[in-house]
């Protein structure tokens, strides 16, 4: 299906276009911009606010030109007041608006944690369901060129811990558009985390408005030997890893979680039941995070495993600035390949061990 396909590059997409001339290819950032524009034009209660949303660059192009199109009242620059402005959005949402709040970096979200955790996430429950908070908070993970410790964090795990929040991390242009639209219509506070390296990724995106349902993972590649669960940018690394492993005769299934909370454990469990092997690749740190949660769900389901599970994550350290350390810091395709080999190898060794053991 064109909308579940990951295209390695624009050339690859253009090739696909030859067979299916109906495909409409736009970039991830254009997909976000398009979804936002359509939400603004179809729903008067939607507004966009954030530092630099009206800037000439338009938050890496994702809000470019929206202010000219929809006016200063509905697309507004914000003072540098993350906690306050988040609270303003929470209040506006309680009073019937649907704000899209944009942050240039995920690292600036911690300033607004009070409003996110203590207010947005609690308001519906704490008042017995009498009011809801339809709010999308977009933020971006930076990477590279010495972004360093305060401009590169993947903080999804922190938000996964909070009941009342939803967390999405689209990996493709199709999902970016569909999830953003679904998120704003969902009626709950949704944390949407984008990865800067995805912005120029091209994929098929229909022009009309559509929703990608929250809480639904997608199988990017079917396979029978090992399951790789990945999120965001790591989905692309995982697809490439799976292609390379195919040549070695290891047939991987790649699952893109898309929504981290609520997590689609059914899709993951079904896959691991089949393969018996699981690798989870996340953009963030290891402990109490995406991998830990996926594995817990698999364990709770009592899935029989053929080998120990492996997580691919950032090393246990803040992001270093030096190019020498940055290079060593980020895991990628090769680490996923190694991880899968480890699980597959383990299975083989065990099988050999069983085969070679003396029959009693």
């Amino acid at each position: 299906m064109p909308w579940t396909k990951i295209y390695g590059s624009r050339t690859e997409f253009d090739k696909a276009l030859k067979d299916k001339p109906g495909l409409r290819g736009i970039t991830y950032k254009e997909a976000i911009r398009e979804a936002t524009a359509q939400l603004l034009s179809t729903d008067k209660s939607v507004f966009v606010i954030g530092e630099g949303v009206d800037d000439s660059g338009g938050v890496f192009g994702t809000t470019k030109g929206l202010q000219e199109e929809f006016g200063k009242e509905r697309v507004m620059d914000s003072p540098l007041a993350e906690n306050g402005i988040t609270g303003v959005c929470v209040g506006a949402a309680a009073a019937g608006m649907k704000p899209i709040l944009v942050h240039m970096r995920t690292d600036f979200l911690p300033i607004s944690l009070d409003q996110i955790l203590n207010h947005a996430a609690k308001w519906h429950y704490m008042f017995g369901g009498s009011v809801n908070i339809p709010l999308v908070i977009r933020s971006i993970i930076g990477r590279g060129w010495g972004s360093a410790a305060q401009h590169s964090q993947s903080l999804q795990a922190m938000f996964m811990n909070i009941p009342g929040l939803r967390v999405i991390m689209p990996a493709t242009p199709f999902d970016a558009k569909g999830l953003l639209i679904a998120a704003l219509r969902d009626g709950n506070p949704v944390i949407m985390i984008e990865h800067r390296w995805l912005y120029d990724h091209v994929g098929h995106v229909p022009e009309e408005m559509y929703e990608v349902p929250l809480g639904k993972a997608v199988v990017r590649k079917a396979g029978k030997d090992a399951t790789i669960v990945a999120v965001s940018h790591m989905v692309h690394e995982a697809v490439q890893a799976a292609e390379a492993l195919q040549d070695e005769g290891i047939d991987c299934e790649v699952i893109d979680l898309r929504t981290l909370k609520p997590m689609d454990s059914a899709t993951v469990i079904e896959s691991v039941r089949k393969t018996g092997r699981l690798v989870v690749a996340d953009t963030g740190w290891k402990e109490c995070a995406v991998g830990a949660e996926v594995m817990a769900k698999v364990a709770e389901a009592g899935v029989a495993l053929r080998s120990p599970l492996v997580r691919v994550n950032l090393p246990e350290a803040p992001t270093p600035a030096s190019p020498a350390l940055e290079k060593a810091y980020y895991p990628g395709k090769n680490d996923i390949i190694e991880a899968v080999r480890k699980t597959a190898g383990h299975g083989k060794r065990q099988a050999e061990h069983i085969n070679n053991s003396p029959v009693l």
Partner: protein
Amino acid sequence: MKDILLKYGLNTLTKKVLNDLYWSMLRIRMFEEKIVELYPEQEMKCPVHLCIGQEAIAAGVCLHLNKSDYVFSNHRGHGHCLAKGAAMKPLMAEFYGKETGCSKGKGGSMHIIDIEHGILGTSAIVGGGIPMGVGAALASSMKGEESVTAIFFGDGAFDEGAFYESFNFASLKKLPVVFVCENNFYATNSHQSARQSGCRISDSAASFDSRGHCVDGNDPLAVYKAAQDAVALARKGGGPSLIEAKTYRWKGHVGPEEDWTKGCRPKEELDYWKEQCPIKKFTALLLEKGAMTTEEMEQAKSAINGELAEAVAFAKASPYPKEAALLEDVYYEAKK
């Protein structure tokens, strides 16, 4: 010169201070311009936020600080640290991501530290350094030290709640702090008037029962005078002051290029402010009044050039950190 100094209320100012002001501004300017020159080589692999055009503020404030006084700064921190006495070598090496950098290559240009000169680290989270600076002042007052803490931040940081919370606490406890707001009218590409209704930053001091000064941040003597009063007040237990110094950043928010080409700001605005160059105007004044000679200025330039050349050579020749360093220093380990 006396007539001019009288106007500022600086009648006892010595020739040495005038020279030091000139020297400090020039050293910052030349340092930043060296980065502009080298950045296209793409060996300095980190974002750089240059303070060209704003040098008078760091120079005018830091001349009043002792070595043990604290400075807290932000993403645009090269000038503050240089003016406080930081050497060029560890900074340059840090920007090149080298092991010999002030943060062992872990921080890059946004995260400078120089404990010896009272710089306890610069934050790239806007407003992040403000409460920390107040905390350092609290520590020094609890320890009975005479230190003063200067906190540099931008007009953008004045939007942040952290500023108000911190200023209130500093005022409440009469802490020895000088809040220095470098108002360059922009936070990235967002104009002050798009973020603040009043645009009278220094006035806010009054509601905290503290002293506010609004000065021309491109006039080193005006900054020097305001800082003199603020530091003296802080040192004698009179509590915090807020200096708002109006200025302009010549380069784009980040990187070595001017940003009018990208439509971020009008070119005429930059042209106007280039006319207000703090170094150009101060140079003219010093020469006109005979407070410094061309030869002395040339000497300063060549000395700074020498320091710069050494720093760049040092940075380039230094090794990158070893991969094992990746997992070092995540936690402090008490020395046994």
